[in-house]
């Protein structure tokens, strides 16, 4: 493009603007007319947007509407939480404890006033805390609802003394802990008197209430020791049983199979040979494990028959480094061992609740070289690997390594229930089975429905504010339709006014335009004349309309301010909408000007030379 053409382009724009300015009354009328079309549309859009935004806000901002709650108690496995938390529409998911276990007594330090509060677990990202002006508590911190804080009269930074009570063996017991208040939530977070702490504190409270000790908090109590379970029982007798005695062994003992065991099979299981003057029977349950109670029942039934009862766990292996060691569990009194022709064992006969000091022992078979005296051992067959220390106490009389049967029976239980080895307590403990419930928040209110459906498909009884969300959606759809109806009618009117006005202007200015052509402006330069005018008027109009909109929305919001929360507006448009409205107005003006622009190209410069 030559500089000359550039100059004349500026000339057309200049001429167009000077003309608008010259006819400023007409321009003002048209600008006001277009603004009068746009301003109500903006206002309507603002009202629609503001109303829906306020309603949605109440839903979106209030996490209560994004919560999905279980309505019945059910044991949710740890795995369930891991799996379900993988959904990307979930903002927060934490296990909760049984409702009855969550009641705690709270008092302020150095005060006699006490209150009973509901204890709720929380964790990183909990929207109920974060979106109600709180911060997530850690360690021995807690967050309280407004009601709870007012009830006991505390403020952020105060320390609470928390008392957890339980009834154990008819005795009333209690434990205490100290919690620091890091936040007090907005009243919106709920009217219940609640106290939120990290999940592990809540779980400790539940465990304590169930009678367990919590060593990390110096709360005394029992341990969730794993029970003993066996694959079967071998009964060694001096002579065979008669049919009646044999059948009797199946009654109320928990075993349903009793059969004579060949010597070879005996050696296979135990790793040592049965003395020839003895016989052995294999007692087991084809469908179930054999429990310690079965062992006691069988023992009772065979009383007086000089029986040696050997409960066993079959085919066990310990793994250390890359070495696998076959192990057999055997706990017998010196007398019984003597009968079987075996040397004495360091741990003696079977006890129901043995200490780990007793069961953490091992005798190595002859074929295995000397190992360190203490070996870390893992038991194959348990999900994952369980590691625990064993003391080597000498040589095994069997071809297998020998350990106390209590050890293998404990590990055998681990195939059914998760067990852990607690290094602090030096004991095996039953791991927590699952949780009584959960707290779940969807990311947005639109995610509630799919999560709700997914949980329903798992046959879980749940509740969510799905209806409230749906109502807003229906309202939004309805208002959107009404808005578009009004907007389209308005826009069509605006376009018609603009087209008519621009076209008429070209008709009126025919002579001026033809003079411009005569003076050397090309057809396409003159073509731009009404377009520039339309764009200029569009910009003025949208400016006027936006000003009018702001003024009116200010008034409307002021009128409704009493019914709204801080920061909420009944009439509101985000900046992006205003930018879109501006672009739309300018585009519509451009399109409307095309007819007038085309009309200019039909003007003959020769007309300038004619006088009407």
């Amino acid at each position, binding site marked *: 493009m030559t500089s000359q053409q550039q100059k004349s382009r500026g000339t057309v724009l200049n001429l167009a603007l000077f003309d608008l300015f010259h006819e400023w009354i007409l321009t003002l009328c048209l600008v006001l007319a277009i603004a009068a079309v746009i301003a109500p549309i903006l206002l309507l859009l603002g009202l629609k947007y503001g109303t829906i935004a306020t309603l949605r806000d109440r839903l979106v901002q209030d996490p209560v509407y994004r919560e999905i709650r279980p309505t019945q108690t059910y044991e949710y496995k740890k795995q369930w939480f891991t799996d379900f938390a993988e959904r990307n529409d979930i903002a927060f998911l934490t296990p909760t404890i049984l409702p009855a276990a969550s009641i705690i007594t709270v008092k302020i330090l150095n005060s006699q006033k006490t209150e009973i509060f509901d204890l709720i677990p929380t964790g990183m990202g909990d929207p109920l805390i974060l979106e109600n002006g709180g911060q997530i508590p850690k360690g021995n911190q807690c967050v309280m609802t407004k009601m709870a804080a007012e009830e006991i009269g505390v403020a952020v930074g105060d320390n609470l003394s928390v008392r957890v009570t339980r009834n154990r063996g008819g005795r009333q017991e209690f434990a205490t802990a100290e919690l620091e208040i890091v936040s007090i939530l907005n009243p919106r977070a709920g009217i219940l008197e609640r106290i939120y702490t990290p999940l592990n504190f809540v779980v400790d409270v539940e465990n304590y209430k169930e009678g367990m000790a919590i060593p990390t908090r110096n709360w005394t109590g029992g341990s969730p020791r794993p029970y003993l379970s066996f694959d079967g029982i071998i009964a060694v007798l001096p002579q065979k049983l008669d049919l009646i005695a044999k059948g009797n062994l199946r009654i109320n003992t928990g075993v349903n199979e009793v059969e004579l065991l060949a010597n070879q099979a005996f050696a296979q299981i135990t790793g040592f040979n049965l003395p020839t003057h003895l016989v052995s029977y294999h007692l087991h349950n084809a469908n179930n494990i054999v429990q310690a109670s079965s062992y006691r029942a069988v023992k009772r039934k065979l009383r007086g028959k000089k029986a040696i009862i050997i409960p066993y766990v079959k085919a066990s292996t310990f793994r250390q480094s890359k070495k696998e060691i076959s192990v057999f569990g055997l706990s017998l009194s010196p007398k019984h061992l003597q009968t079987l022709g075996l040397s004495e064992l360091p741990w003696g006969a079977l006890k129901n609740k043995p200490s780990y000091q007793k069961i953490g022992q091992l005798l190595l078979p002859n074929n295995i070289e000397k190992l360190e005296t203490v070996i870390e051992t893992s038991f194959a067959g348990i999900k994952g690997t369980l590691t625990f220390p064993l003391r080597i106490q000498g040589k095994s009389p069997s071809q297998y390594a020998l350990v106390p049967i209590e050890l293998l029976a404990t590990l055998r239980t681990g195939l059914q229930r998760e067990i852990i080895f607690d290094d602090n307590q030096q004991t095996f403990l039953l791991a927590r089975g699952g949780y009584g419930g959960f707290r779940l928040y969807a990311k947005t209110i639109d995610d509630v429905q799919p999560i709700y459906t997914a949980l329903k498909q798992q046959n879980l009884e749940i509740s969510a504010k799905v209806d409230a969300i749906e109502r807003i959606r229906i309202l939004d759809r309805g208002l959107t339709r009404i808005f578009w109806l009004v907007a389209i009618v308005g826009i069509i009117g605006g376009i018609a006014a603009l087209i008519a006005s621009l076209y008429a202007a070209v008709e009126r200015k025919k002579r001026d335009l033809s003079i411009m052509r005569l003076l050397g*402006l090309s057809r396409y330069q003159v073509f731009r004349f009404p377009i520039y005018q339309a764009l200029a008027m569009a910009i003025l109009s949208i400016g006027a309309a936006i000003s009018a909109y702001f003024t009116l929305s200010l008034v409307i919001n002021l009128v409704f301010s009493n019914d709204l929360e801080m920061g909420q507006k009944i009439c509101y448009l985000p900046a992006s909408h205003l930018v879109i409205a501006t672009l739309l107005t300018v585009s519509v003006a451009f399109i409307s000007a095309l007819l007038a622009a085309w009309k200019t190209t039909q003007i*003959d410069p020769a007309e300038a030379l004619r006088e009407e």
Partner: protein
Amino acid sequence: MLKQREQGGISFELEVPNFSLQRGQFVAIVGASGCGKSTLLDILALVLRPDQCQEFYIYVADNKVNLKRLWNQKEESRLAEIRRNLFGYVLQTGGLLPFLTVKKNIYLPIRIKGSGYSDEKIVQLAQRMGVAELLSKKPQFLSGGQRQRVAILRAMTHQPEIILADEPTAAVDKENAHIIVQNFHKLAKEIGTTIVMVTHNHDLVAELADTTFTFKVTRESKTLTRSVCFEATA
């Protein structure tokens, strides 16, 4: 050159056997109303296409531009370019744009062309034309004579080769008309521009015109009028 026009079933035919302009000439086209002088001016102004012509040239510097070819090839933008660079126009009632001030009107051809007289020269010319004090006014506040003087000024500020004036004094009283035409003539001679002035008033230009063209109108039939343009001998 031949141009035919038809209106209401009546045809008008203009024949121009020969028409040439020299640099610096003051040429008058004189004739009664309806003789085709405006049609001739349209053709000269490059806004009306002749129907037939043997040759139609304009010399730009030393280049000979074939206007016949430009018309035939419909090179409108090239014609517009020639109009803005080489032509100045004075219309019957001035043809000033009402939304521009006198000053902006005068500068418009310069802006369109991209070059022209310096500001001092224009101010000087405006003083000579007696419109210097009107520069900031809009045309609507000017008298007919003032408008015409501004129009003449506007026609020459971008230093055109040819100024075409169509009855520039039609809306002005006789006395003023004489003064305007004399001024016009004097200025044009000074700056060496060719002037083609169309008028029905022969007396107005009789003393000044270097060459005068006029028309011979014959009514061939009820539906056909023919007009032939020829150079009037002094």
